[in-house]
């Protein structure tokens, strides 16, 4: 079954009808295609987290419609019977390690699948499988999740969501607060899931390198609405526009933009080092290129 997700004229207001009400989203029109890798970027408070919580009906729009596969979510939608949806669309919240609660890692990973009706023995097997998938050794299975390091806890939490076998995986700043090695491992894992298991991925991130390296779509959020959508190559062309919004571009792109000011020519600003090298090579004086090759 296809799980395309479509937003039509969606608006969301927190605490609607009280003096504390605040509009977090307005005029959202967006399609997230099956098997795509969508990155959502934007300033803190621009509505990224609010947007993704509509993807598995944790929030219902205050107006407009969200269509998830065959389910239509409108402001009137009943809170019941949303479970199948929650199973299909897995959500890894910001700092997901705060959701761990079981005595052992194995039990915590199995918690989600068992809520969706999986047998305990099958779920236990699944837990072991998922732990390997997130790159943790099997001997952690019987340990308490509270004895692990922060990075390990994060990966256990992610394993707990993956164990539900979702078709869409949402990650809200999954690498926030991790060291470079931890970041690379998590992003590598997400990349594998996207490529090998064809998961649709929606990633909220502040790291433009991740967008450049992994995403095939970018959504730029600004003050509760979508300011720009497109492929990363398109969105990152307008360096000044992004920097005016304090969003920046990948380091490589920024470097290339500076080279452009010095007279180098690019048809399109490169996003990755490989692209930069390819674009730059024909423009360099011959000796420089051959010298580099000699080294």
């Amino acid at each position: 079954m296809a799980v395309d997700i479509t937003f039509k004229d969606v608006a969301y207001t927190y605490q609607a009808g009280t003096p504390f009400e605040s509009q977090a989203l307005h005029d959202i029109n967006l399609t997230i295609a099956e098997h795509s890798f969508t990155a959502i970027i934007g300033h803190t408070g621009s509505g990224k987290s609010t947007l993704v919580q509509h993807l598995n009906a944790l929030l219902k729009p205050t107006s407009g419609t969200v269509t998830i596969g065959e389910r239509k979510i409108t402001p009137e939608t009943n809170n019941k019977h949303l479970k199948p949806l929650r199973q299909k669309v897995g959500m890894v919240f910001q700092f997901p390690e705060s959701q761990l609660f079981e005595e052992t890692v194995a039990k915590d990973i199995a918690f989600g699948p068992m809520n969706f009706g999986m047998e305990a023995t099958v779920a236990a097997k699944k837990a072991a499988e998922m732990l390997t998938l997130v790159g943790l050794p099997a001997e952690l299975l019987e340990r308490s999740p509270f004895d692990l390091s922060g990075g390990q806890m994060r990966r256990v939490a992610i394993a707990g969501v993956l164990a539900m076998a979702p078709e869409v995986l949402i990650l809200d700043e999954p690498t926030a607060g991790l060291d470079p090695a931890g970041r690379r491992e998590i992003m590598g894992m997400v990349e594998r899931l996207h490529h090998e298991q064809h998961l649709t991925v929606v990633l909220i991130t502040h790291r433009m390198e991740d967008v450049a390296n992994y995403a095939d779509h970018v959504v730029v959020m600004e003050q509760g609405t979508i300011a720009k959508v497109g492929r990363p190559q398109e969105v990152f062309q307008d360096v000044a526009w992004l920097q005016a919004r304090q969003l920046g571009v990948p380091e490589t792109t920024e470097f290339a933009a500076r080279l452009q000011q010095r007279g180098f020519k690019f048809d399109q600003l490169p996003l990755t080092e490989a692209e930069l090298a390819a674009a730059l090579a024909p423009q360099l004086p011959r000796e420089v290129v051959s010298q580099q090759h000699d080294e």
Partner: protein
Amino acid sequence: MMNKLLLGRFIPGDSLIHRLDPRNKLLLSFYYIGIIFLANNWLTYLVLFFFTLFAVYLSNIKMGFFIRGVRPLIWLILFTVLLQVFFTRGGTTYWSWGPIVLSQFGIVNGIYIFMRFVLIIFMSTLLTLTTPPLSLADAIEAILKPLRVVHFPVYEVALMLSIALRFVPTLMDETEKIMNAQRARGVDFGEGNLFQQMRSVVPLLIPLFVSSFNRAEDLATAMEARGYQGGEGRSKYRILTWQARDTWTVLVFGLLTGVLVWLRA
């Protein structure tokens, strides 16, 4: 769901009531509950009723909030009122069945009790809606201060109270966040039978405890690192000052007491 929790919620504003000294407001609220018991006839209840309405009007806060304050207690109120109505004898008896009677006095008493509840709830709602929780904690500290002579730990209690109040919103946000995270893992909060509902609380409570303990530890470290020392000689950031308007409100309450004493049966 947390958003509906209005009891004890502060609504920012700049009305006369908002600007009163919190010590004054707190003491006057208690005093008001006391003088409500002076009322014992239609006239005195009517005076109190309009007095309360006037205070609500002065606060610039919508009536809806006060009515919502009554709602969680409505069953308790109805129960008490019905007891009064059906078990009070006197005056004309309209109907009786065994020990249960419907009498003139019963009906009147029922209405009085109902009024008493509503007036008390309105006035205490007015206090919490117009006073920031931390100011309220300061007021409590100021009022408890005399108890130091009997070695009551006033500063410590006040500090505990401020910290607790400060972290109520944080804890509510945290609760909502963890509930959403567990919902995403297939938990149905508030559904199923009692046993299932009790079980669904575990994945919420344990993370909450863990994060509260972590937070407490961080807070203690931060306070120690900045050389916190409670007790004698510690100066205050928020200083409470008694203004002319506070004196005026006290006088108005004095006048109200006089009127009640004069009009009561």
